[in-house]
């Protein structure tokens, strides 16, 4: 098979499994990232706690990985823009995952504020990947203002419930030209494979790997699922039919 690379911004990426680093213990980080085969990892920004000195997460992320800071904590476009600029000053490149979340119960993103923040940050030279509720019109608008990828949620963050928004994500995949990365809600390798079979460009995972009993083994399981789903998508999957179609010849020497 020729190299199947994903182009985002100025980068060509071989691994279609993006990994969130939340809740992964630092000593395990490198192993998990390597087992997942991940090239894109997300990180968050927080105030330094002077009373609890801790090690630096960047020391635990393999060289060469693309670091994608998120804007978690932002409730408005203005806050997301501010966080993105602070993150870029941190010296990890110009990728940013925009998430604007005013709702604490379901952690659903505010698509309108996300669009505003994306438009501004693209002008400011960022490679913007936008976390969104799956809505075609918003996805097309994000594309129009220069988002490098759209990231519809499969189900609310951390719920592990799979592709509850499947029909809407399908439409976005069909209609958008920018990569569609399913972010949030994927709890099992089979969910990730399903997203890739549908034609998603990549998936972004965190909780399902980070909170597994054996997160290194789970990272590998997801890696295989993502690769498997992607290969199946490229191979062209068969349609479904209502009635049986024999796969063995029925020619009758028994007649």
């Amino acid at each position, binding site marked *: 098979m020729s190299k199947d690379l994903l182009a985002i911004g100025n980068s060509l990426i071989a691994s279609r499994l993006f990994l*969130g680093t939340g809740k992964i213990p630092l000593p395990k980080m490198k192993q998990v990232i390597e087992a997942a085969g991940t090239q894109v990892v997300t990180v968050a920004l927080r105030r330094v706690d002077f009373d609890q000195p801790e090690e630096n997460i960047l020391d635990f992320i393999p060289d060469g990985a693309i670091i994608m800071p998120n804007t978690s904590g932002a409730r408005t476009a203005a806050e997301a823009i501010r966080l993105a600029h602070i993150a870029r000053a941190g*010296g990890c490149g110009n990728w940013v995952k925009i998430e604007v979340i005013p709702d604490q119960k379901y952690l659903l993103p505010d698509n309108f504020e996300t669009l505003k923040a994306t438009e501004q940050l693209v002008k400011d030279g960022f490679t913007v990947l936008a976390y969104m509720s799956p809505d075609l019109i918003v996805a097309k608008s994000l594309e129009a203002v220069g988002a490098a990828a759209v990231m519809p949620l499969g189900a609310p963050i951390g719920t592990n419930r799979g592709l509850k928004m499947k029909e809407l994500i399908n439409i976005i995949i069909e209609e958008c030209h920018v990569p569609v990365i399913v972010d949030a809600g994927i709890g099992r390798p089979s969910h990730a494979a399903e997203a890739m079979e549908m034609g998603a460009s990549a998936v972004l995972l965190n909780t399902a790997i980070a909170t597994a009993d054996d997160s290194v083994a789970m990272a590998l399981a997801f890696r295989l699922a993502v690769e498997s789903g992607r290969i199946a998508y490229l191979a062209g999957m068969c349609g479904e039919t209502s009635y049986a179609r024999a796969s063995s010849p029925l020619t009758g020497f028994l007649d």
Partner: protein
Amino acid sequence: MICVKVNGRQETLPENYTIAQLLSQKELDASYVVVQLNFEIIDRSLLSETTLNEGDQLEVVKFLGGG
């Protein structure tokens, strides 16, 4: 002495104290943090020449795990 708010906490610091001096007093590696002084991002190359003034608000942030 001057009073400065550092990550939401009042601190008393000597006059002409630089941000770089404050970071090293907190045992922080400047290359791992981003500093905002009164909501302005301060470029790392300027940390050792930026002095703090009475009433300044300083935010020191870093990356950590997130999805």
